Structures are given as C-alpha cells and as structure tokens.
C-alpha cells in the first residue's frame, strides 16, 4: 500500500511540476493564453451550490475578486467546486488550474503541493507582484480547507 501511495504521490507531483515547467518557459503572451484557456474551462458551479453562493457563503475573503470554493473529501480523494466571475479571467484561470490539478488527488498530495505555487509559476514576475496577494490567498485558503475537511493536522 505504501508503495502505491508514493507512486500516486509521484504522479501528482510530476503533474504539478509539468504545469510549473510549462509556465516557466512561457513568455508573457503565452502565460496569458494558458490562463485564458484555464479560465474558459472552469466547470460551471453545480446547481446545489448556486443558492449558497448567492447568499455569500463559501467566499474566500482574502481575495478582492468574489471567489467561492467548496471542498469535499470522499474516499481519500479531494473534490473542489469553485466559482469566479468571468470578468476576472486571471483569478478564474488560476482557480481553474487548481481545480484541474487538485481534483482526484489525496488530501496529502494537495498539501504537498509547492508552498509558493504563484511564485513557482512565475506569475508574480509576469503579472506584477501587487496582483499576486489575492491569488496566494486563494491558494492558501484551498490548501488549509483541504487540511481541515480531511481532518489532517
């Protein structure tokens, strides 16, 4: 079992590293294009959460953009649903990247993802540091929620 777990862990980290590598070699326009692709592929918020969103529940308070995140852990697998307005494509793209990368991973894997992903992706250098506070906050909020929901200390 241990071997299998670490194999999965390796795959998860390899996937994250692949994304980091892609962003690292991308120029400014390519970075924007990748974020735009992610932004356009964020799955629609499931109907069951729409009312909660409209009432302001599950909002990530650190981000000026209205970002809403729901996290479930079933059978040791993380599932994230999120909603970000289309008028904020950068934040939406970043959240979509996280949803795409983290869904299906174990809570431990999500927690093992790089601590400073925004920096590792090179977003602070390309988009400007002042924009990055919100993204880092969303990232930290998702990780800490996964930790909380899965009961890991």
């Amino acid at each position, binding site marked *: 079992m241990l071997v299998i777990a670490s194999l999965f862990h390796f795959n998860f980290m390899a996937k994250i590293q692949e994304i980091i590598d892609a962003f690292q070699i991308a120029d*400014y326009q390519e970075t*924007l*294009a990748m*974020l*735009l692709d992610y*932004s356009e592929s964020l799955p629609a918020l499931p109907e069951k959460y729409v009312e909660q969103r409209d009432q302001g529940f599950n909002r990530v*308070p*650190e981000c*000026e953009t209205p970002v809403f995140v729901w996290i479930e852990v079933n059978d040791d697998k993380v599932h994230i649903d999120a909603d970000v307005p*289309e*008028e*904020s*494509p*950068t*934040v939406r*793209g970043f959240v979509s990247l996280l949803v795409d990368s983290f869904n299906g991973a174990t809570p431990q894997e999500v927690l093992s993802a790089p601590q400073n992903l925004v920096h590792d992706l090179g977003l602070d250098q*390309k*988009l*400007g540091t*002042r*924009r990055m*506070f*919100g993204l880092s*906050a969303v990232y930290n909020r998702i990780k800490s929620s996964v930790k909380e929901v899965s009961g890991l200390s």
Partner: protein
Amino acid sequence: MAEYVHPDVLVSTQWVADNLNDPNIKIVESDEDVLLYEVGHVENAIKIDWQTDLQDQLVRDYIDKEKFEQLLSDKGISNDSTIVFYGDKSNWWACYAMWVFKLFGHEKCLIMNGGRQKWIEEERPITKDVPDFPKTDYKVSGTNEAIRAFRDDVVGHIGSGNPLIDVRSPKEFSGELLHMEAYPQEGALRGGHIPGAANVPWATAANEDGTFKSADELKAIYMDDKGLKEGDDIIAYCRIGERSSHTWFVLTYLLGFEGVRNYDGSWTEWGNLVKAPIEK
C-alpha cells in the same frame, strides 16, 4: 441642474462606437485584471496594463520618459492622438492610466463614461482582434508633476491644514481592516489614516452602471458634506494610488478644482513610514 466643469473630457459609449475607426483617436483599455482585454475588447482598442506597462519593475515608480516614449510609439499612439480611456470597475483603472499619461504630459485624454461595464451591458460588439497600428515616434515634451504628491508634500499638507481625501473604504480609514485576518493584502504595518484626512470612498462618485454621478450629486458629496471649496489645494490618496486617481479625475475635471494631486505612495507608503503620524 449644474454641468460638469469640463464636460468635454467625458465621451459616451455611443460616441466611441461612432469614432472607433478615426485614425486621430486611439482607444485605450486599462483594467485591473490583466487578462480582461484578451477576453474581448472594443474594436481597435489598445491594451495598456497599469502594472506591466506603466510601472517600473525595479524602482517603485513609473517607467521613465524613454520607456514611455517607446511604449506609446510601439502602440501606435502619437503626440496629437486623442486618447479615450476605458476599463473595468467604473473606470477606476482607466482614470489611473489617464493620470499616468497626464504625468507624462499627454494633452488630449478622454474617458468613456461607464467604461467596459456599460459597453458590455449595452451589448455593443467586442472583439479579440488586437489592432496593429503603424509605429509612431512619440516624444514626451514635458512631464507634469503638479498632479502628483510625494510624502513630503503630504507632511506639508498636514501642517497647513489643507484638505486630504482618503478614498479607501471606511474600515481601512478607521484602521480596523488591518487587524482583520481576512485582508492581509494591505501591505502596511499600521492601520488608520493621515491626520486630518476626510473619508470619501472613491466609488461614492460612481453610479451602479459605472458612469459618474451628476455634477450636483458630486458637489453635494465633496463640497457640501466635506467642505471642499474653490481654490483648495487637495491631495487624494488610497492604498497604492489607483482608486485615488478616480477621485483625482472627478475633482479635477468634473468639479473643476485646479490644485488636485494624487499621492500614489498612498497608504502602503504612509502606513509603513517610520515616525509618520497616523490617526485612527
């Protein structure tokens, strides 16, 4: 009903729709979100990003004169171009870009009233096509530092009792916000406001649809309520100088104050400045 003092700096979405192919007019979109332009923009609009294009990446300052000349030359803007700025968030970033263009002395700057939001709500066409205008040879003839305040100017302002307008939210003004876990992005070690400042959140000047409030409404807010009067030497500030450029625009062009400066160091500088006086 009173008119704006300089109504000629505002154009309507219809005016832009009618003039977007005029070679003497350049439309500039400037948004908070760096990707919003890529989602779709007004035909022939040029993207200018407040952070990646206008700010120096090393010094906490704007790009220098040469880089500004290069930027505008590359974008196809010439010295006699009439520039129409528009953007997201009630033109907050459009006003910021316009303020920077004014710092570099560009004369003909207009704002599209209502900005991106109004254009989209009116279901006007947007495109993903990026215009490719012929390069120009833009030259900065002289900078206009009279619209910018530095920290020493603010110190002088406190002593003289001249008006300061803090355009942040009431909780930032009171200093409460810095103590909330939810807003670590403030980037200042002390909360509160510059002594003597009056609090008028920038969005107070905007309508729901992103347009500016009427001259009468603006007069009631800034003059009747806050006591600003003709001839006043005013400094506006916020967190990093962006929201206050919206107020700078309102006070300068819509209400006609001649001595309005934007303190772009704003709270991220003042709240971190050793020995700077703060009120809560």
